[in-house]
């Protein structure tokens, strides 16, 4: 994982408040500190949480946050 990307994801994880953990389904549960360590290592868990954040950032330009009507069309 590229260094700049790691820094970006770690910065985003830093905003998690104390006491808030994440369940990543069958991958297990993790605290903020643990997730940051996984991102630094670039292992499977680190890549998964990176994927979650990159997916979000990419969704900003696809318009997912526009209100949708019941047919799924963006209003």
């Amino acid at each position, binding site marked *: 994982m590229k260094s700049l990307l790691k820094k970006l994801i770690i910065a985003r994880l830093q905003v998690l408040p104390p006491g808030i*953990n994440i369940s990543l389904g069958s991958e297990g549960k993790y605290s903020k500190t643990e997730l940051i360590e996984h991102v630094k290592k670039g292992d499977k868990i680190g890549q998964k949480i990176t994927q979650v954040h990159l997916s979000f950032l990419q969704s900003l330009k696809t318009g997912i946050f526009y209100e949708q009507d019941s047919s799924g069309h963006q209003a």
Partner: protein
Amino acid sequence: MNKTLLVTRPDYEITTHYLFAYAQLVIDYAKARKLTVIDLAKSKANIHNLAKASGEAGSRSAGQSLIFLNGHGAKNLITGQNGHLLIKVGFNEKILKGAVVYALSCQTGKSLGPKSILAGCLAYLGYDEDFVFLYDQNSTSKPLNDTTAQLFLAPTTQLMFTLLGNKTAQQAHQIAMSQMQTSINQLLTSQAADQAYLVPYLTWNLTHQVCLGNPQATI
């Protein structure tokens, strides 16, 4: 014949503990609507009980059964208590034949869902990636009081309420996504903005929820 709700809800670590607690809301709702409920809870959530119960649920050709699967999963399988196998592609996915299914589990929308549809499942709602949620580690003894987890698990409960209200699979799918979307919009526009960190995770679940099979299927 009465409509039947079959629920599997293991409870052996934090993730399954939260799903177990929220599934109780669905069970209570179904009972209030006079459905027959088969609750495979904790150690009862095993492959033998599921095979027996899916037979008891019966009348699948009439689309009378709703199956709610909670627990850890992968693209081609879902598990029960202590991570033991419940359903696996190529082994026993045919037990979902004739039912409307919602799998609150990771990744089963990739393979188990599509294969179940091929085996005669009417509609399969689930996730084609990991289902994620955040929780307050000080609330794990009372999951329903955890306001952080609630943002993730209330929409999944609403999906089930919608199916139990005789709405279609597609309507249930849309209502759950709309609820997630509303939460995201509120978090992004809130003056306080102190929970905006939740948005990427809600967006992940919203993006990866799938509705397979017949979108007009109901129970």
